[in-house]
């Protein structure tokens, strides 16, 4: 199993795209910081910092591409046979890929958050991280909670992306479907609130859980989702495991 993890990491590290994506993420953060500094009327400094200079949004986009391609690329490059015939089981191959996806997501979130802090110190020393943002939280604690909840929501979204990607034999198709799926889910989850208001039971569907990050940032959203933040966190984890399980079932049944 350790060997499989090493192999997945090796592939990730040696892909040029991994480093280009990281560079783009940091570049966008710098650009947003420059924008907030130069045109404060357009983008308020505190909002720019609390929004990670868009770092977390870019990290999610990178992760959708990464999750979509981690299985699909093996079929596209014809490498799936040499991956599966060895002494390992399909479940181990699948789990090693999921672990690498989780690890990559955590790394990106940590890097973009650390870079946000660096940009804040260098370019926005006057933004006070200890200022209150309501609900008994400081700007810093709110950012930490916000990033953690975004990461959890990202896991749920990525499990859906991995599930979709197991149906494709081409990288590009899997990634495109991942992005389209992302936008469809975003639109659907917003419209969902209207439905929940009418039919209470609809709140238990997985798309409601995708609003977890937003509810952490705006606790009043619980009046619309009809779910407490804690329940949404648990629901996100449960649905992530369910979708990953279905993705594994597809991967296991897939002919090679």
């Amino acid at each position, binding site marked *: 199993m350790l060997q499989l993890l090493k192999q997945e990491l*090796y592939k990730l590290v040696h892909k*040029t795209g991994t480093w280009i994506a990281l560079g783009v993420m940091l570049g966008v953060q710098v650009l947003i910081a420059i924008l907030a500094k130069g045109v404060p009327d357009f983008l308020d400094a505190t909002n720019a910092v609390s929004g990670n200079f868009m770092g977390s949004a870019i990290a999610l986009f990178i992760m959708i591409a990464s999750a979509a391609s981690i299985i699909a690329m093996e079929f596209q490059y*014809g*490498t799936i046979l040499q991956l*599966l015939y060895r002494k390992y*089981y399909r479940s181990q191959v699948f789990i090693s890929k999921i672990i690498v996806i989780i690890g990559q997501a955590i790394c990106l979130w940590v890097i973009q958050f650390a870079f946000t802090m660096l940009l804040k110190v260098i370019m926005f020393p006057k933004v006070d991280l200890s200022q209150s943002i309501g609900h008994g939280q400081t700007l810093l604690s709110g950012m930490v909670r916000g990033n953690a909840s975004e990461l959890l929501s990202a896991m749920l979204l990525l499990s859906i992306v991995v599930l979709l990607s197991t149906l494709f034999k081409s990288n590009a198709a899997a990634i495109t479907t991942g992005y389209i799926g992302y936008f469809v889910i975003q639109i659907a989850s917003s419209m969902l609130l209207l439905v929940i208001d009418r039919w209470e039971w609809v709140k238990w569907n997985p798309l409601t859980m995708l609003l977890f990050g937003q509810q952490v940032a705006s606790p009043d959203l619980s009046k619309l989702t009809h779910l407490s933040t804690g329940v949404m966190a648990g629901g996100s984890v449960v649905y992530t495991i369910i979708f990953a399980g279905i993705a594994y079932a597809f991967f296991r049944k897939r002919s090679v």
Partner: protein
Amino acid sequence: MTAMLAVKDLQKSFGNKKVLQDVSFEVERGHIAALVGPNGAGKSTIMKSILGLIPTNGGSLSVDGQPVRINSHQALEEVGALIEYPGIYPFLTGRQHLELFADGKDKSADIDSVVHAMEMERYINVKAKSYSLGMKQKLGIAQALLNKPELVILDEPMNGLDPQAVKHLRDVIKEMAANGTTFLISSHILSELEKLADTVLILNKGVIVEQTSMQQLKDGTQTVFAIATDDDVRAKKLLTAADIALAPGDAIGILQDERGGLDSALRLLIGADIHVLAVDHVEGDLETSFLNVVNAKEVR
């Protein structure tokens, strides 16, 4: 002694279509077995079954005495394989492909040894996306030979290789087999494996129609003498009337058998005042012998 590879009553169907029927064979340690058959005979399906890549519908498979199933891969620890076509990550170099799968204590020396054996030094550090078909094939074989496997399974390994590379690959395989590595190699062209295999398994329509040694198969080939005369039509009539065995076709081909054939034919033709212009010795054709086996079993 336990066979390195044992396949017993293997069955495989895709839907209602039976692809493999009661396939049974064994390969001894250090032997080279050739799995030969026309395209679609089931060669890759057998290899995928041995590697636990697809579920089977019956029978058993074992590598070095340990069973292999789709959900039981422990026996494959010492197995290297190239199935169908080489899988290549375009963003990795040849060496990185080998580093990716290298296992054991002395990875670097093992990689160098495989690269040297496959004569890949010139381009091993170049990204594989720029490789030609032959270079990719060599890389696929190199990956199969990595980590000093005890059993190597190669599906059509000569595909895309130039004659020199084919000869070199034969030498590498022979050397590894002499050191105890067992090989199962498939091809739809028997002559590719003529100078290599100890055992030949002829597969047709999912059935092993013949399991024999390469020497026995060669012994089954017939020697033919092609004769040109100044009156081929009359010559052919005379030879047929004299019950001399002829090869099928328009040209005159004398089948050499225990009764001689060529000597009787020449005496007859010269006696009938037919001028013999040329006599050519046609080598025993292994491919024809292979096709004869396949076709004969089909007729049955």
